């Protein structure tokens, strides 16, 4: 088991390396640069700036230099914002994004599994139809429709919650609630469908029949036997779900003005702020890859059938 974990962990390194390399070259081959503005800079100034950021060197040398810095944990200076370096911007905004993402994921998991369980138990009854229709609606409505609609009713019409912004401390839930619910909706819907399907499948299996035949109570069967087997697909969905939640949070952060990483990301892409784009991509990829890794580990712990070769 330990060897499996170590082997999987070492496998992350080439993936990250490839991601960084691809993004680096995609960004660099594009026409235009961080310093090409409407008002053209004098030749000498441009050359000096490029020299300062080592942009006058051949691309491969720049690549080597950047990789070396990244390995040391330094994401370089921002090309646009002069007050701080990329590390500062990323690590001051990342916690907000991560917090939002985790809260959304937890809402999605708890609600999704409960609704999925409910409709699996009441299969083909009214409760099942209602909750599955809600789930399809959840999948069909884009985040950026849900967000503004919630904002319209809860903030502008009924004045229950503030429209947008980010408060820390005890009243933080007020600004967290709407973005987190918005972000969780599609994942809630998907998890509900997923867990319904797999619970139904497990309920029909032989070992559940055996458990029934032994005379176990329904509750015991449900929580001890069914859920353990039925949650495997849900667990393996969590990796991609978290990846999408992180991407989705770009939009939600935009709508609700959450000072997270997503807003930096879009802005830096528009600005051609090479180092800031690279920094955000690297951080997102690390989160993604590590999440997928953790999910794999959890999966293999939950399911004894998975072999760790």
């Amino acid at each position, binding site marked *: 088991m330990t060897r499996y974990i170590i082997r999987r962990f070492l496998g992350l390194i*080439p*993936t990250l390396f*490839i*991601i960084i390399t*691809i*993004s680096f070259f*995609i*960004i660099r081959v*594009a*026409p*235009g640069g961080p310093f090409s503005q409407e008002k053209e800079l004098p030749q000498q100034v441009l050359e000096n700036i490029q020299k300062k950021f080592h942009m006058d060197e051949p691309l491969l040398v720049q690549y080597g230099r950047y990789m070396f810095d990244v390995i040391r944990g330094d994401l370089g200076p921002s090309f646009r914002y002069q007050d701080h370096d990329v590390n500062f911007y990323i690590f001051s905004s990342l916690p907000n994004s991560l917090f939002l993402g985790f809260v959304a994921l937890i809402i999605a998991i708890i609600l999704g599994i409960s609704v999925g369980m409910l409709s699996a138990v009441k299969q*083909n009854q009214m409760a099942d139809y209602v909750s599955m229709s809600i789930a*399809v*609606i959840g*999948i*069909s*409505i*884009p*985040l*950026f*429709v849900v967000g*503004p*609609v919630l*904002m*319209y009713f809860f903030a*502008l019409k009924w004045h229950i919650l503030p429209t947008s912004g980010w408060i820390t401390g005890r009243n933080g839930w007020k600004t967290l609630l709407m973005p987190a619910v918005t972000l969780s909706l599609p994942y809630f819907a998907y998890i509900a469908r997923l867990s319904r399907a797999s619970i139904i499948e497990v309920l029909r299996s032989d070992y559940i029949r055996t458990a029934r035949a032994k005379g176990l109570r329904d509750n015991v069967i449900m929580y001890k036997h069914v859920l353990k087997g039925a949650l495997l697909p849900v667990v393996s969905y969590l990796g991609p779900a978290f*990846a*999408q939640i*992180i*991407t989705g949070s*770009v*939009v939600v952060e*935009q*709508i609700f003005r959450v000072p997270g990483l997503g807003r930096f*990301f*879009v802005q830096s*892409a*528009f600005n*051609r702020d090479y180092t800031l*784009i690279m920094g*955000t*991509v690297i951080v*997102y*990829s690390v989160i*993604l*890859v590590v999440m*997928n890794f953790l999910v794999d580990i959890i999966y293999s712990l939950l399911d004894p059938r998975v072999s760790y070769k």
Partner: protein
Amino acid sequence: MSDSRPDIEKNEESVTTQEQPLSNLPQQQPEATNEFSQPVKGVSLSKDAWRRMKKNKMAMFGLVVIIIYAIISLAAPILPIHSYRTQVLQHVHLPPSLTKTAGQLWYEKDLNYMHKLNASKGIEGLTDEQKQKLADIQQHIKNDTMVVNGKTIKTHDRRYLLGTDYLGRDMLARIIYGGQVSIAIGLIGTITSVLIGIVMGAIAGYVGGKTDYMIMRVVDVMYGLPYMLLVIILMAIFGRNIFNLFLALSLVSWLTVARVVRGQLISLKNSEFVEAARSMGASPARIIFRHLVPNSLGIIIVFSTLRVPTFIMNEAFLSFLGLGISAPYASWGSLVGDAVEGMASYWWRLFFPALAMTIFLFAMNFLGDGLRDAFDPHSKNRL
């Protein structure tokens, strides 16, 4: 399954076959039956699936909705709607109305505004200046004309069923034309990514060995990429045009198809019919594309149907961020994105495009689910 049981007795095939005494026909093959001992006719997979699909009400509802959308989108040029790009500056932000003309709405809007303004200043009634302005508006409404398709019409007799946007353009037309763009992106994107996926998956699955390993490594690594982020970078850096949009979206979405097709091919490639084809000297390309791919078509169709909404959603996502389609064209996503700013005052600009889009995605998802159930190999030959 349980709700279809009563149909068994009504099934004509079962009645006729039971009447035939089997002993009189010794040379005939025994009737094919499924595991419930119900006689079945050998039908093709697609016919079998279609028969099951027809019973799924939600899926059929989805299909009908999609056909309606397709007809409206295709017929948009001949429908009696306004142009999606004509701007009438006096008609900015008119609310939706079934009965009133644009002129009436314009007049009401300005009148309301003046009353509100005066109320906030504490003035009763209207000032002379304002009365003069209203009279001017009346005059305009009577006299203004514009030329549309070579015909001169009265500008303020136009009607906007779903209101107008911030440049005085008809929302209905923009939603219909935006729908064209969104649906086209969904379809073309899906087709492109499915084609790439089929080719890559088929090569990996059929050839196997090192080729398979290489292709699947690439797929694995690309799975690890934060792909919407990559698309955002591509769009922001290479400029926003439709071609880049297609390229960026399909470039990163062929992965799942490739995996699915590969899996199918591996499970099929050692079957008898492939061996037969090979023994008759069919080339690998012929075996792959004439024999193996058609056999996994069901699963590909299902996957594609569920893929279309994802594409539309992703395009909308990009348009919302200002990275998708650019003016004067519209897509559902860009319409919604534009409307978010002023949604408190101009709800119709957010509501109608969002509704049009949601209904379409809803229908598409229902159709996809229905197809998946219908093509499910476990339900083959069930009634």
